[in-house]
């Protein structure tokens, strides 16, 4: 996305929230949904638009796990590492996932196809180990089902 385009998106989001700095978390959620991540230019533009120091925007953007300052892949993979999934073997699923994608947790494949992250619990504990790709929930995962599941995503 062009810098100009990014700035335009930020402007729209800020207007939607009437430049209210108290909803910074919501603003960053919306901007990330538009841009896929929070590039430097976007944080700077948010700072300018709201009249809030960049350091404060940065402090919020880096505190919460949901925000990313790096580009992320088209498909966001969340491997649930909640307790129920843990005791049902999520560690092996995560290892297999890292192996299959050739990246470590928190990284993005070089073709920007997948980003691999963990999530603490999605509350679907009965179906663990749970893997969420985009908006799709894949339950009862095993190292053997990692490959076939990934094949569904282009």
């Amino acid at each position: 996305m062009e810098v100009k385009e990014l700035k335009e998106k930020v402007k729209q989001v800020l207007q939607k929230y009437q430049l209210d700095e108290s909803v910074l978390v919501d603003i960053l959620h919306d901007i990330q949904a538009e841009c896929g991540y929070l590039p430097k230019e976007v944080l700077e533009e948010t700072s300018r638009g709201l009249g809030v120091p960049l350091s404060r925007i940065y402090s919020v953007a880096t505190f919460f796990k949901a925000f990313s300052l790096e580009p992320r892949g088209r498909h966001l993979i969340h491997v649930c590492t909640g307790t129920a999934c843990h005791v049902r073997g999520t560690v092996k699923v995560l290892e297999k996932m890292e192996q299959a994608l050739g990246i470590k947790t928190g990284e993005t494949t070089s073709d920007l196809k997948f980003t691999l992250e963990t999530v603490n619990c999605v509350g679907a504990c009965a179906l663990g180990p749970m893997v969420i790709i985009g908006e799709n929930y894949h339950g009862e995962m095993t190292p053997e089902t990692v490959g076939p599941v990934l094949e569904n995503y282009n």
Partner: protein
Amino acid sequence: MTEVKSNNGNKQRTIYICQGTGCVSGKAFEITEALKKAVAEQGLQGVNTDFTGCHGFCEQGPVAIVEPEGIFYACVTVADVPEIVDSHLRDGKPVERLFYKDPVSGEAIPHHKDIKFYNMQQRIILRNCGRLNPERIEDYMATGGYESLKKCLKEMTPEQVIEEVKRSGLRGRGGAGFPTGMKWEFLRNAVGEPKYMICNADEGDPGAFMDRSTMEGDPHTVLEGMIIAAYATGSSEGYIYIRAEYPLAVKRVRLAIQQSEEKGFLGDNIMDSDFSFQLHVKEGAGAFVCGEETALMASIEGKRGMPRSRPPFPATSGLWGKPSNINNVKSLATVPVIIARGADWYSSIGTEKSKGTCVFALTGKIANSGLIEVPMGIPLREIIYEIGGGIPGNKNFKAVQTGGPSGGCLPESYLDQSVDYESLAAAGSMMGSGGMVVLDEETCMIDIARYFLSFTQAESCGKCVPCRVGTKQMLDILERICRGEGRHEDIDLLQELGKQITAGSLCQLGQTAPNPVLTTLRYFRDEYEAHINENRCPALFCANLISFYILPDKCQGCGICLRNCPTEAIVGDKRMVHVINQEKCVKCGTCLEVCPERFSAVVKVSAEEVDVPSEPIPVTAEKPQTST
């Protein structure tokens, strides 16, 4: 065989599909669509297809219930739809093969009310979950919804409402168990305007999903409880703070707020009274510490979600420095029932000090995973063996973990313990918000302690030293023990660190972080000692302490393990006994999983030598009789 009267066209029949997050991950949306289509194609009169929120029985999902007869279908797939429609909805013959099977007796149970998982529960908070369409306010109103609010506004003063809640004995269901009525009174008496009412729906405990299911399954009860709380406390504005990881709950609560506003239960001059209340949804952004009330408020204010010291308590100086009150989802969901049925009725349930019911997310190594609501004071054994159906796969019970990362692990000797705030705290665990994870003999207790500590360590906001540095030190020690590099002084050191972190941390996250370690040390000290002194993991879990061997008297040289080994650590040939190169082995256990059951040639041991050849040798074992 269950016969149901054939559909004569006059009788209304509704099939409800569960659309909670669990069942949705099992394609509940697709099943609903397929049912609608099939019912329309058949032109069935008087048959409705509808959906509900979470039934709680996630293990059997996706689930469907056909009313009025109350037939319960488990593990439904899209492929089952034609049979359900043709056989049951058209011809009145329920589909037996989709009935729930009792895990102990194997008996097929057609009716929802006869399933032990349900009939041993007492549902107050979850009373409507799975019974109505959460996206229609009319369904909630048909069950007497918003009548309690009406009663409060028309017949009771705010002080009377507070008095009723105090008398009921309701205590905060977020974990700490502070009396809800007292909290409301503090806010009522606080000086300053405006006052804020906040619902804490930042359910961050791993392995807990009670709040999610309540919001997805019956959002209006949470709203009604919150509006009543606002009336009682004199709050004019409120927030529901929901985890961003719960998109479906966010969607349904937003919709419920909109419907409630349209009906005049929210907004200005509610039900023509002079009471006004505005309610907003705030989404979290993935920080566990935001479940702590002062951190939650900082996050609502658009800041880093870091806790601050108390006092001042939120009732004096909360959101934006104004008087505020924070209640958990389940506490608020209980309020409308208390108002409707009275404090005396509510306080008759439970124990002397812990009144009412509690909701648990029962997960881990348990046959019936799901959401349960039971009266306070029920023994753990009843929850695990009667409602939960025991441990699957003929494994032995080892421990039950309650209270999430802040709680502890209780051993078998505590199974007859009553479940209430006081008993669990006395045993070194806690009620917490309601996660209950069952662990079996294959679970290593050091690994579980390490798991929880790695969680709290990662979620520590970093503000205070005992939590930030202390949990890191404890985690390093636990990781060392799991690697087989434990030192003799580690047990004492862990205990000492645990005490310091509990005493010195700013908020509950740090204060309770050592609990999983301290309780496992208390009840499973022998496992720590085995790791440290003997390099042995009794649960055969810790990779550095276990080895896999192929038994020469059982191996048939089939080569399945060799082909599946990810690190090419297995050597062998046709009709040759295979051998694992221990240097190359990464202890993934694949060979054990793939070795055909009739051979069972692979064994897993810890701190044990097994006599095996160093090179492949010809197979001498006789072929098992039961070949396939």
